[in-house]
């Protein structure tokens, strides 16, 4: 039994210690946000936040995680009450097939939490680990900028 703290809640998980977090999220906890894209830390479809940093859940065995704070897209908001970044993505219609999007949102969330006023260059750099094949990049960048604006307004 391994205890994981996910979106502020504790979960006791009965999975082998070398199981990557991605599989535990999806199979044991039925959470759909983080996705399998490569299992190699190359595409970011599995991105979640760990102690405030964006990480690849596909290469993090759960044995590493007791005592750490894990945040997933499910912890940012719901369809009824989306979080700021989620709402920005909806407003910009920043998705085509949508498979990469949950990872993008988590990467953006981590960026904005530690750098609330990123420059264009910083946004592009920070989002580099995440791939989009449909070519939704322009909208994703607009969504991140929009979320930054909203966060600034809320903070004021």
């Amino acid at each position, binding site marked *: 039994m391994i205890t994981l703290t996910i979106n502020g809640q504790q979960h006791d998980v009965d999975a082998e210690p070398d199981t990557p977090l991605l599989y535990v999220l999806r199979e044991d906890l039925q959470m759909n946000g983080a996705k399998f894209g490569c299992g*190699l830390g190359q595409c970011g479809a599995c991105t979640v936040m760990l102690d405030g940093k964006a990480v690849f859940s596909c*290469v*993090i*065995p759960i*044995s590493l995680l007791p005592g750490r704070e894990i945040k997933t897209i499910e912890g940012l908001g719901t369809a009824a009450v989306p979080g700021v970044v989620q709402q920005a993505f909806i407003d910009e219609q920043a998705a085509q097939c949508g498979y990469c999007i949950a990872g993008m949102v988590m990467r953006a969330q981590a960026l904005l939490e530690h750098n609330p006023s990123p420059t264009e260059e910083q946004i592009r750099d920070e989002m580099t680990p995440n791939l989009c094949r449909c070519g939704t990049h322009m909208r994703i960048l607009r969504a991140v900028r929009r979320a930054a604006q909203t966060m600034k307004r809320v903070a004021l």
Partner: protein
Amino acid sequence: MAHRGAWVLGAGGVVVAGAVAAFAAIAWRPQIEPISPPASNSFSPEVVKNGAVLAAVGDCAVCHTAAHGRPFAGGRPLPTPFGIIYATNITPDVDTGIGAWSEQAFRRAMRQGIDRTGRHLYPVLPYPHFTRATDEDIAGMYAFLMTRAPLRAEAPPNTVPFPLNVRATIAGWNLLFLRPGVWRADPSQTAEWNRGSYLVDAVGHCGACHTPHNALEAEKDTKPFAGGEAEGWDAPALQAASPAVAPWTVEALTAYLRTGFSTEHGAAAGPMAAVTQELAAVPESDVRAIAIYFASMMPHPPPMAQAQPAIVTDNPTFAGACEGCHGPDAPMTRGGAQSLALSSAVNARSSRDAIQMILHGLAWREGHAGPYMPGFASVLSDPQMIDVVRYLRSHFSSGAPWTDIESQLRAARRDGGA
């Protein structure tokens, strides 16, 4: 008594003053008159082309380009034990670059480490190596740089503390460690070997990283290529003390230097990655010459049997985090990379490079196919790092267990491996 003390003080003062004056006399250099930047078409294309090759071997762009900066426009911070020194703008911009430098001024900088105005340059510019380049090659590098796009950019001020920020002190360093004189061929060696030797010594300055340095940061010429360090990474020995488990043949070295990857040794990482990226644009014959030179110094263990890597079942961190790429039949392995048992970093004397590799991974190069690895700095706590590093060593290497893991990890985290 007071008179005698005063006289001693006075005499001492005169001696000191004399020494200072003598020193100043040695240290002082005249300005070389500024010129108008020569027109690009005043240089022969052949000379410029030769200069481009030499600039690539010499890694000019690597130091003189900032992250997200324009090529050769400087601004990149170079950490040294004496503080941070920012690389200067070497584009032919008149105000902020070398646009007003004549070829004579450039040659003086390359051979003596003196800029156009007579100021000493820090030997982080490897002029102790460039001093051995031929006039023709220095002219080539000059032609190359003067035909780049002039870009306006000023480097930030260095953070070197007093008294080292008094540049005249470098004159003393030069007295001790700068050995002028053009490189000379070794008649007992082949032309290719000599070409490699020249490129390494006079241009590529490989010893700047791969040769141990003394306390004053000068290369120990009694121990050429016995191993050194750069920017937090160990630069392994390139001679008998090489930690490589598989032989470094000419073919393996040539491929590694041109692609940044060797199937039997691992990937170029840390500062070496940029070196191999530059060498990709250098004619293969020149890279092969460098490989011939170093291969002649490397030990020649018998060729390795192709060991089939085994699946890891007894370390959860490795099984969950590493095996997707480093296990058998993984994309890395399909790409020809064999087991981590052959990795130079895993077999090195120190755990330093393995730790750096795990913390930082290898960055994407936009649009380039090539080795990549995610970094685990945010993922692994220190105890978890130590555990997996110990495991790597014990499982994949027959070398003695590392004793420096904690200290290397502390240093690596401090230097930006958070």
